[in-house]
């Protein structure tokens, strides 16, 4: 058994675990599913690790594998997401009754992101992570032009959710 590989992997993941936590925040709504997704990401990363040859940075590789895991898992669980959508719509109505303070506005934004589909969430996530379009396109395996077009559509979608 390759103890060195294991140690290397866990150390790398420990240093970059924020990436996985942030993806979990975008894709899940409660602590339990956050933990589930985090574990699934860890397992998928570990499974793919022997193929990671260090051509790119660990974090770059991790963005790709972790996002793929989240997207795949999200597709499997579409049913449960639908019920969450109802909750967040409900939540949105409630928050709108409050003053439109900056914090409320941020909440609305996060809420709107939760209603996006799996790929759109990935786009927003990478955008929030301050990735440029070259990096976004590489991570998601699409062309740069496509990434730009998609990102613009997502922005419109978000705007429409917030101001219907």
């Amino acid at each position, binding site marked *: 058994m390759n103890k060195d590989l294991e140690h290397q992997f866990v150390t790398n993941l420990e240093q970059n675990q924020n990436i996985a936590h942030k993806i979990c925040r975008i894709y899940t709504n409660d602590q339990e599913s956050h933990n589930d997704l985090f574990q699934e990401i860890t397992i998928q990363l570990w499974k793919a690790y022997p193929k990671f040859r260090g051509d790119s940075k660990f974090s770059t590789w991790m963005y790709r594998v972790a996002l793929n895991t989240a997207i795949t898992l999200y597709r499997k669980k579409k049913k449960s997401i639908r019920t969450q959508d109802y909750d967040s719509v409900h939540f949105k109505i409630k928050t709108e009754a409050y003053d439109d303070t900056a914090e409320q506005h941020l909440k609305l*934004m996060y809420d709107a992101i939760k209603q996006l589909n799996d790929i759109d969430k990935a786009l927003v996530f990478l955008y929030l992570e301050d990735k440029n379009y070259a990096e976004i396109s590489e991570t998601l395996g699409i062309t740069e032009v496509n990434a730009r077009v998609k990102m613009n559509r997502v922005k419109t979608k978000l705007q429409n959710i*917030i101001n219907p």
Partner: protein
Amino acid sequence: MDNLDLLKKDWKKQEKSIPQLSYDQIYKLIWKRSSSIVKWIFFISIIEFGLGAVLNIFIADDEYWAKMEEYNLTLFLIVTYVVSYLITFYFIYKFYKNYKAINATDNAAVLMKTILKVRKTVKYYIGFILISSGFVFIFSMIFILRNHVLSAEEVTSDMSFDWKQWLLFIGGTLLALAVILGVIWLIYTLVYGILLRRLHRNYKELKKLEM
């Protein structure tokens, strides 16, 4: 779009408040998936035992026992209950031990061994359920039949079977037994089979990593 950029700022701020896992916690996560499957095997065995016990209590009222008394089945039933409960408890204990063992492991080789053990235990358990169901069915039949023969001869000899009727009777009984065992087998392979298949997949993945 300033909306998203506002969010970006907040996103960066919140980065500091993200909870961090330690090296050991992450290390354990790599091996944790099998543990939750084995935990479910343990829980299902308990639920199943509880369901069986509740069902027994509901079915076995005074009328039931009176009827069994009539067939001379009381002693046989009590012995069967005690023995099957003891064996079921043994299996639940085994499932629990497996769960504990898999939970404490952070070593792939030991984990693989435990997974194999879990699969074996579940297979034995399903075997036990099938054999005991068949056993109870056949013995109940024999007891009822003996009772029937004993009381029938007293009343009238017309109640006795000729060889054709016997053949039909035994054939029918065996068919019923086969159907019952088939259904039980189906239910168990469905409930535990899904979990076992997942465990097997984990096992294969571990094996790949080992090589």
